């Protein structure tokens, strides 16, 4: 028996999915035109009317939306319904600038929670499971999203929220949690904390983890799976489109199935805006198909990835997106070279270090300085200065090979790099302060 939450949709023939999408996009565009003057104006500027949009093939005629549009229209400018019909808001963390506030009607919440429920069931969840949600609750979509999806599946839900690791571990062990939901960096942290308390991976009852809200690598997945004794599933989403659950991994762990009956995905050239053919790397763009309160047409995510419609052995027919290679916002340009923090994480894990690091960029005499602080783990510590300096040099050389640019590596004591229990602060860019 395969793990599906809504099998008739999740495994629908491609023609059926297209039919659903075509029917929904016509209504969605009309809904936006009638209710969101800001977007209507953008359409008028491009000379597009709702009559021009008859199927998803016509989506490419529509103007793009970016995060800047959402900031400019804060708070109510993108609202597609009367405020009295809305039942909730969520908001982005605001780490990259002004916050974005998204609104939800009960219909929007239901479709979002259905998407998350599909992800939980795909990870093996049933009503017999105990789901420990340690994403933050509140404005962040992580906590409520997984919480709502877990309810839909009928799992016993532990609404832990983030932080207080000792209490997380106590509930995990005492209430025999079987599915852990949090950011991958917090999952790694819980794994370390369990080991420190003397627990082995087989001592917990966890079978799966659903981790998202920040970029993570395949190497980090393997490390988490080993330390917790679980299978780790990726989940993708963003507040602007609803929250986690826009796409999720099945047991194949080869890309995340996008919930195409609610979200239409395109890959575009980030510079020209041109739609790229399947298999090309480009910026992921989402169009909501049936949202009421916060409908976004052609929203540019800044995430760089690849889509694949190759059939998946899990039986799901929905398109898969590869793990984003990085956000175009995350990409650092150091001395003219493009660097993604995920590349640094890959080197650290390959060289046997923990992925606890921080990048510090500064500018001295008009040249970028590039420092990486890395925590030493107990089994690597030596009493010999020469040995530690050799480790630093070794890491510097591995980084240079991977990045094409040489950082200065500094080894630091464990737990000296600020640990977030939500999203990790990986980059401190002091160069911006001088400009």
């Amino acid at each position, binding site marked *: 028996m395969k793990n599906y939450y809504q099998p008739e949709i999740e495994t629908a023939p491609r023609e059926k999915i297209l039919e659903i999408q075509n029917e929904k996009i016509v209504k969605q565009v009309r809904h936006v035109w009638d209710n969101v003057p800001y977007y209507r104006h953008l359409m008028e500027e491009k000379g597009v009317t709702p009559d021009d949009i008859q199927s998803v093939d016509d989506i490419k005629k529509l103007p793009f939306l970016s995060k800047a549009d959402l900031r400019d229209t804060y708070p109510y400018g993108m609202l597609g319904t009367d405020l009295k019909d809305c039942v909730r808001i969520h908001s982005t963390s605001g780490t990259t600038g002004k916050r974005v506030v998204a609104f939800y009607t009960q219909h929007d919440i239901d479709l979002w929670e259905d998407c998350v429920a599909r992800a939980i069931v795909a990870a093996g969840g049933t009503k017999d499971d105990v789901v420990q949600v340690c994403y933050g609750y509140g404005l962040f979509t992580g906590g409520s999203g997984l919480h709502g999806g877990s309810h839909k599946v009928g799992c016993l839900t532990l609404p832990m929220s983030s932080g207080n690791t000792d209490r997380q571990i106590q509930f995990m062990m005492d209430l025999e949690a079987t599915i852990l939901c949090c950011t991958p960096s917090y999952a790694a942290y819980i794994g370390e904390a369990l080991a420190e308390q003397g627990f082995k991976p087989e001592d917990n009852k966890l079978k799966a983890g659903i981790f998202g809200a920040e970029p993570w690598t395949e190497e980090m997945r393997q490390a988490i799976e080993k330390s917790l004794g679980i299978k780790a599933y990726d989940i993708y989403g963003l507040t602007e489109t609803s929250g986690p659950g826009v796409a999720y991994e099945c047991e194949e762990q080869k890309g995340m199935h996008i919930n195409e009956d609610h979200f239409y995905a395109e890959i575009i050239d980030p510079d020209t805006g041109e739609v790229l053919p399947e298999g090309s790397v480009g910026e992921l763009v989402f169009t909501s198909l049936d949202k009421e309160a916060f409908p976004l047409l052609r929203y540019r995510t800044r995430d760089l990835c690849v889509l694949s419609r190759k059939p998946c052995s899990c039986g799901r027919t929905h398109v898969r997106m590869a793990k984003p290679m990085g956000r175009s916002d995350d990409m650092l340009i150091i001395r003219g070279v493009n660097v993604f923090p995920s590349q640094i994480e890959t080197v650290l894990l390959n060289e046997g270090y923990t992925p606890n690091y921080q990048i510090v960029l500064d500018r001295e005499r008009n040249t970028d300085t590039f420092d990486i602080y890395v925590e*030493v783990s*107990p089994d690597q*510590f*030596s*009493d*010999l200065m020469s040995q*530690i300096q050799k480790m630093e040099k070794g890491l510097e050389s591995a980084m240079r090979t991977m990045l094409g640019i040489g950082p200065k590596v*500094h080894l630091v*004591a*464990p737990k000296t790099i600020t640990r977030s229990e939500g999203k990790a602060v990986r980059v401190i860019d002091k160069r911006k302060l001088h400009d």
Partner: protein
Amino acid sequence: MAITQISLFLMNQPGQLVDAVGALSVGGANLRAMSIAESNDFGILRIIVSDSDQACALLKDKFLISRTAVVAAKMGDRSGALYPILKALNEANINIEYMYAFTGSGADEAYVVLRVNDVETAEAVLNAAGITTLSDDNLKI
């Protein structure tokens, strides 16, 4: 034989040394000897204590530590006392990574702590040359 040295990885910042010594101060372990190697970012504090198990228990939750076997060779507290020790090790082609010394409770009693690549051979060479080396039990005073 040999004795246990505890090494602590500390950041090269105010407050680190005092915290380490503070953590040790509650347990009654006597600090017999210490040395620091420093770089720009961090330092390695190496200590010899009267009870290394107790000291490790006090330190391990707060600091990154490692235990290393080192040789403590007895010598007189006077000019020229160190030379025969290093000469014997040199003749056996033993490399010394680093060393430091402390005085004993007797009037003419000092010890040199030697971090060498081959502890067993080093001790055998020194003992054969009539030089006394300490074990952890000798430190418990």
